């Protein structure tokens, strides 16, 4: 312990002797570590931003759309042919093991009026489980309950944007508004979710019980059928299983013969985002790799300077060996010196890298994420660089012949 301290003292003195040289050598490591830290931080931030956006949509989501009708050759788009029923939703929930929850949904645009304000928005009729599936909390009031669906009560939940546009500063809970001229009691306001990746305002919505929506708002639906289902899988790992299970189950329930086309569409909503995350990961690794190269170059710089230092201090090494320094004493001295260079450089690099990533985050509008792990990795890596690139010069020094070394001029 005591002699380790002395070894560090010797290293510091040696580095102080050639301040400029030590500083320039360190600079290589500083730039390398700073680059690695900044690249990892920016990569992590980009990934975080994407997964934040995913979580506003809700994770592990699958959408089951009813099939398309075609009249006179013109196909009417997904959901126009009523092929999905409430029973299908129940069956998916009960029979697909990878599925956590299902909510049937009926949707359409509608004009909403409160007192002298009016607003055109999207009306979603759904079952209470929709909030769970979308991972959406109530900001005030109460959520939809099963009883609302059973009794087709005329109640609604307002999205944040709707509440702000119609009510301004007034608390909407308990008031009565009109959706397509039908009076509804506002039972709650949803928390703000913000925009989707495609720029849709998710808060510009009104949720009503699906039965109410079908009977009192849209009117023209076939009883027992719905437009689409929102499905939540148990986890991201079983998403693909869930999609397959739903497909198989619905083909069976709809009696679709092998080779015949589905009369429904199953979409994995998370897939696109997974792709985005995967791309970001590749970018992070790539940027990290490029940054690591500069760290490697910095390490070679250390090795170079250590070799110069060993040559310059041949006589000193000779003296130390003559008075009894063992092979490892000499090796340790130079390794510690290289390590000191790289660790100090590493610490400055960490500080610089973080400052850099904060600046980049500001300009690129990304969250600032400084992960302790990347600091530990960068620190360990720079210490490792010191040991690795310090070893050869140290090894060379330790094998010097003391007689020749003492005569070295």
């Amino acid at each position, binding site marked *: 312990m*005591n*002699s380790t301290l*002395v070894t560090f003292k010797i290293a510091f*003195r040696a580095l102080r*002797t050639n301040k400029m040289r030590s500083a320039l050598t360190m600079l290589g490591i500083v730039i390398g570590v700073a680059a690695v830290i900044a690249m990892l931080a920016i990569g992590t931030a980009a990934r975080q931003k994407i997964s934040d956006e995913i979580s506003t949509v809700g994770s592990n989501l699958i959408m089951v759309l009813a099939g398309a009708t075609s009249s006179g050759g013109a196909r009417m788009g997904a959901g126009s042919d009523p092929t999905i029923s409430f029973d299908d939703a129940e069956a998916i929930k009960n029979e697909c093991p990878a599925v956590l929850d299902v909510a049937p949904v009926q949707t359409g645009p509608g004009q909403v009026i409160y007192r002298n304000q009016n607003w055109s928005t999207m009306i979603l009729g759904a079952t209470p489980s929709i909030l769970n599936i979308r991972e959406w909390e109530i900001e005030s009031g109460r959520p939809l309950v099963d009883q609302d669906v059973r009794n087709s009560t005329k109640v609604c939940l307002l999205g944040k944007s709707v509440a702000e546009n119609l009510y301004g500063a007034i608390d909407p809970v308990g008031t009565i508004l009109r959706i397509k001229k039908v009076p509804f009691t506002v039972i709650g306001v949803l928390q703000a979710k913000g925009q989707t990746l495609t720029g849709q305002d998710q808060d510009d919505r009104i949720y009503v019980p699906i039965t109410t929506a079908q009977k009192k708002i849209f009117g023209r639906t076939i009883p027992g059928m719905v437009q689409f289902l929102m499905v939540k899988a148990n986890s991201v790992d079983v998403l693909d299983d869930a999609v397959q299970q739903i497909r198989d189950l619905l083909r069976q329930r709809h009696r679709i013969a092998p080779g015949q086309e589905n009369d429904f569409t199953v979409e994995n909503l998370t897939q696109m985002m997974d792709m985005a995350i995967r791309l970001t990961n590749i970018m992070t690794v790539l940027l990290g790799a490029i940054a690591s190269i500069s760290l490697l170059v910095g390490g070679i710089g250390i090795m170079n300077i250590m070799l110069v230092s060993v040559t310059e201090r041949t*006589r*000193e090494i*000779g*003296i*130390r*060996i*003559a*008075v*009894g*320094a*063992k*092979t*490892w*004493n000499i090796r340790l001295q130079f390794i510690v010196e290289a390590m000191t260079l790289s660790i100090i450089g590493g610490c400055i690099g960490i500080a610089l890298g973080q400052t850099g990533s904060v600046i980049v985050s500001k300009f690129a509008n990304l969250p600032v994420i400084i992960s302790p792990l990347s600091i530990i990795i960068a620190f360990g890596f720079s210490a490792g660089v010191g040991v690795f690139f310090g070893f050869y010069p140290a090894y060379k020094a330790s094998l010097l012949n*003391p*007689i020749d070394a*003492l005569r070295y001029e």
Partner: protein
Amino acid sequence: MSLIEVSSLSRTYVLGENKIHALSDISLMISEGEFVSIMGPSGSGKSTFMNIIGCLDKPTQGFYHLKGTDVGSLSRDELAVIRNKRIGFVFQGFNLLPRTSAIENVELPLLYNGVTSKQRREKALAALEIVGLTDRKDHHLNQLSGGQQQRLAIARAVVNDASIIMADEPTGNLDTKTSKEIMMLFEKLNSQGITIILVTHEADIAQYGRRLIRFLDGEIISDEKTGD
């Protein structure tokens, strides 16, 4: 038992095709407490001899026993331990560490044998006391004269209670007056029981010893007591 026992010792250097016999077939005994001067012209093998005796080099042939230990069979690190504990070196060029304080130079051998920093400081101060440099302990090398630097080197040689001091032309860089002071210091150390082996080519320096060995062309040509 003798301190140093050398029998049919040879040291051959290979330089390309040529073999240079720096030492050939030397046999010699040195007892504890002796003050031996070794003289000879350049290339006579006296420095090679001292390097082997000082465990800095190994013989090509023959045996060297130091206090009964066969040095020729020891590893590099085992030799380092012997140099550290038993032998102190004093060189013509002082060979002190620049940019280092006097006391730290004296402490240097103690860094390599695991004593605590407190003990290190105590022993170094004691050694500086012996050579009379206590008041210069915090000076740096460039603030010390040649004589003071050589005294510092002697302090370093004795700091670890070495039983042998090897001095290779210790007065070569010093003026006559300072040389005399240094030689008096060696005499003082010798009177305390430390064996001193002095290599020189100056006859008046050699006469401080009580035994004179002359080397020529890698062989001992004379070995006589010079008691005074």
